[in-house]
């Protein structure tokens, strides 16, 4: 997994609440058995005026000029600013895959759906929770070329005017993301504890261990 340490990048504002993972990446693209290549289909139904299909070449598709990611001033944005309950609905990890493949490395919102929030950390994407008031203030400030600087180690965001905003990420998740650690490798370091648990559990619930 890609590590996340510091990022200074352009911000794109997606001013909608309850953005669901069906909107982030529609189901027809979930038929892919690969992990990469979802970026061109990110927000497909909002971003394009035609109907997207898997493996479609997007370079000539008609763009929806009203959609924020199609506006010239937000090209190259790596930070997404949005509203409450971002990533609700389906558990599809294709949603953070699509966001990451498009180029987003951080998402700022007042709240996230739990499964999506969790999935982001597995893919080097940092979801940042700020109060609704702070998020609103950032929406107010956004203008052409608006950049934020994010420092995960210090857990701070710096605005163009020099305002410092603190945020909070669980110690365990922060450590893993800062170092780009392999979760499975770390868990397997606890293999003896897992085996000891299984032995003890098999005493309490033997019916679960009959076929092993």
């Amino acid at each position, binding site marked *: 997994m890609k590590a996340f340490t510091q990022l200074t990048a352009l911000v794109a504002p997606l001013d*909608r*609440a*309850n953005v*669901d993972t*069906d*909107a982030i990446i*529609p*189901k*027809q693209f*979930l*038929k*892919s*058995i*690969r*992990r990469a290549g979802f970026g061109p289909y990110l927000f497909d*139904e909002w971003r394009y005026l035609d*109907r997207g299909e*898997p*493996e479609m070449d997007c370079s000539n598709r008609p763009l929806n000029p009203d959609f924020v990611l199609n506006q010239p001033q937000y090209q190259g944005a790596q930070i997404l600013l949005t*509203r*409450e*309950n971002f990533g*609700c*609905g*389906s*558990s*599809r*990890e294709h949603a*953070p895959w699509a966001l990451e493949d498009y180029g987003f490395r951080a998402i700022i919102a007042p*709240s996230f*759906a*739990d*499964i999506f929030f*969790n*999935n982001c950390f*597995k*893919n080097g994407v940092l979801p940042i929770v700020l109060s609704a008031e702070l998020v609103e203030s950032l929406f107010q400030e956004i203008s052409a070329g608006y950049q934020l600087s994010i420092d995960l180690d210090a857990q701070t965001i710096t605005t163009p005017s020099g305002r410092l905003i603190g945020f909070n990420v*669980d*110690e*365990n*998740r922060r450590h893993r993301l800062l170092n780009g650690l392999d*979760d*499975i490798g770390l*868990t*397997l370091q*606890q*293999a003896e*504890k*897992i085996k000891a*648990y*299984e032995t003890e*559990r098999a005493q*309490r*619930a*033997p*019916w*679960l261990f*009959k*076929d*092993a």
Partner: protein
Amino acid sequence: MAGKTLYDKLWDDHVVHREDDGSCLIYIDRQLLHEVTSPQAFDGLRMAGRQPWRVSRNLAVADHNVPTDHRDQGIADPVSRLQVETLDKNCAEFAITEFDMSDIRQGIVHVVGPEQGATLPGMTVVCGDSHTSTHGASAALAFGIGTSEVEHALATQCLVQKKAKNMLIKVNGQVGPGVTAKDIVLAIIGKIGTAGGTGYTIEFAGEAIRALSMEGRMTVCNMAIEAGARAGLVAVDDTTIDYYRGRPYAPQGDDWNMAVRYWQRLHSDSDAQFDKIVTLNAAEIKPQVTWGTSPEMVVAVDACVPDPEQEADPVKREGMQRALQYMGLQANQKITDIRVDRVFIGSCTNSRIEDLRQAAAVIEGHHKADSVKQVLIVPGSGLVKQQAEAEGLDKIFIAAGFEWREPGCSMCLAMNADRLEAGEHCASTSNRNFEGRQGYGGRTHLVSPAMAAAAAIAGHFVNVAELNPGASS
């Protein structure tokens, strides 16, 4: 010291290791796999040269992409076909039990798990699917995960998790005629909102929940995720234990007796502390219909489409306006004036035998309205289909002009060929009314099986409580 909630008990029983920051390594008793969210997980295992930690704890079934008709012809869409074949190949390579498309036990993963007794009370259950919350109906701690965690659970039989907070939702009293488990859970979501349960595990309790069958409890827990909660729970009682007796994967003999003794402690202690308690009065719940593009946009069938101008919060108001535009509806329009083009009865929310019985009871002796283009009845599994046919339900549906299909996820998310055309209104027993969910430009109204069936006959929404006073949950 205060007593424990059901969630506390399930959590404590599965902690392998606790980190200083409170995150825990949690043991996973059962992983269910399907074709959409597993291929990249198996690739990850192969790339790292890893094997499943305990292969027997995994059970796979293809459901999202499978066709619901002409099964003998296989899957026409080559991209869908490759995904299903990839699951077959991965299961063969890693020696994981799979119910393939020709197996009578094949069906929607969240119908198959309980039906087989593969998901049991007291288990931790995961699946790369948000509706894994369904299995909480049997007091299993069950939640949806992403593909990275599917790989993690395969490789280690564990997941790193932080404990959620405890919420109790009590539905007191008894529901009225025509009001089902689906109406109860839609009313709950309407009350607490789609983010109301975020960060919580919800335990559903109260007389109206206790009165539900296991199928009804599964419908309620299934949609816990639509209220933002990864997991929903219902305590064990005789209904739970009776349901699991004799299921193929359930314990037998002395093991059964021992398991039942263990399961009987799976309820919240009387002095348990919850972080949040929400109470509803069942008698006040009417049949529900969603009007918008989020499950919280829901009203009673005898109400009108809400007016965004009455909403004070500007973000919410804009969301409502956008939803009305997408749905092609007017503020203050009567719900019963909304005409339906298609009807879908199925999905992991409402495709079990009881759901089909409810639908059949409403329509027996009637025919679908001419204006309704299609009514799909998609049973949750091959065994549900078999049972329904044994009861003659298929004949009632076919006589009504409905289509009797093979099991799968079907038009709940339209990954297979079953889908809405742009602009069509659908009375659907599924769980999500998001934009484009059932097909590009499709307009979904979430309802109970009885309400969907009644809409198919009338051609528009009707109050089943008035139509058929005898029908109840």
